């Protein structure tokens, strides 16, 4: 019962996350800017957070960071997110877009630009993907996210992460 209440509280808590999309400091990682900065529910981030839920409980739960990255991505386009990771920790990333037919790629590279070995997780819908990475050393890494050309429209995207 306690777990159910906690899970519901977590769902509710992140469900009411209010985001200010694409401000320069939106979770310290967004792109572009908007004039009016409307307050909206960030449904894409919510999609990523829902996917993360199962990893946030259990014997070795991940700890989800409140920060995130977001922006707009065209089919066939790739972007890199720079992040400092710490050896001995495990990190899990979740990358989401709105269109459930979208195909996503998510990879992590080290400071030399070499792809890291990761454990990827796919979901029933292809608009969310996740991967687990064990940093070999403390330092800067690059998360590469891209949108496959299986759809035509640009997509708003969100990237979140958790550690343990």
């Amino acid at each position: 019962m306690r777990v159910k209440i906690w899970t519901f509280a977590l769902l509710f808590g992140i469900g009411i996350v209010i985001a200010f999309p694409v401000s320069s400091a939106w979770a310290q990682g967004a792109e572009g800017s908007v004039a009016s900065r409307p307050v909206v529910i960030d449904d894409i981030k919510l999609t990523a957070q829902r996917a993360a839920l199962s990893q946030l409980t259990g014997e070795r739960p991940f700890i989800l960071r409140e920060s995130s990255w977001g922006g707009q991505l065209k089919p066939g386009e790739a972007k890199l997110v720079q992040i400092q990771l710490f050896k001995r920790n495990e990190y899990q990333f979740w990358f989401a877009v709105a269109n459930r037919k979208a195909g996503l790629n998510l990879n992590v590279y080290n400071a030399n630009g070499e792809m890291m070995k990761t454990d990827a997780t796919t979901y029933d819908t292809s608009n969310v993907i996740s991967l687990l990475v064990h940093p070999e050393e403390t330092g800067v890494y690059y998360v590469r996210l891209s949108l496959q050309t299986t759809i035509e429209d640009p997509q708003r995207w969100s990237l979140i992460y958790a550690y343990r």
Partner: protein
Amino acid sequence: MNRPVLFAVFLAGSFSIGIGQDAPAKINLSDPNIVFVQGSVIPIPLEIFASLDKLGVQDWSKQVAVREIKLDTNRSRTAMLFGLVVSEGFIAVQAQDKEAVRGIGREVLRLAGSLGVASSVESHANSIVNAAGNSEWSVVRSELDKTRQTVLNKMAELRDDELVDLVSLGGWLGGTRALAAVLQGNYSIEGSDLLNQPDLVKQLKDDFNTLPARAKRGKVFTQISNTLAHLESLMRTDASGAISKGKVVEISLSTNNLVDAIYES
């Protein structure tokens, strides 16, 4: 979407990959055509402490500091203090110090009030105080991160972008001070690599140096600039993958002096 459907959507399959579909095995990071997402997420202290604790139990209680804060009209200093106090909260969580966390929760609210964003963080601050009383450390940790992020979001909404950078810088500084102090007291080559953050320091330094002059009024801001430049040279591993104890001591001294200066300025 009802709950069964919601959870069905996220029934996951897991597999190992070395090379992802359509992704190159190696990328040239200096390729001018690469699109980098601007900005960064600053690691919170607990993220770093989690790694250090995997090397053995550390004594975080000595790093808990609840200081008296005298506020003035300098909003930039208040933003730095806000980041610092939140980082002190994370340290107190690590030390599981109830009273310190409760005091920090109240201080967070006072500082948020001075920055004009108290209403946005009030519920989180109250949750911090209540959860600390019940030793619900995971809740305290989560609420501290939410408090931090809520203030950053609110600052951005209010177009106080320079204050956003200063809150982040204050948070990073507080965590680094505690980490260096713990490593100084219990040095290990393995643990020292957690201070290997040259790119992060460079980015913080560059962000700070590009802030408008109006956001850096006061003597302490010159010290911040100088200290960041100094830390950039110290916070990188040598050929053996370690940061020497001498450098750890220097990092500890530099960050401690700067934290003192911000509190006392």
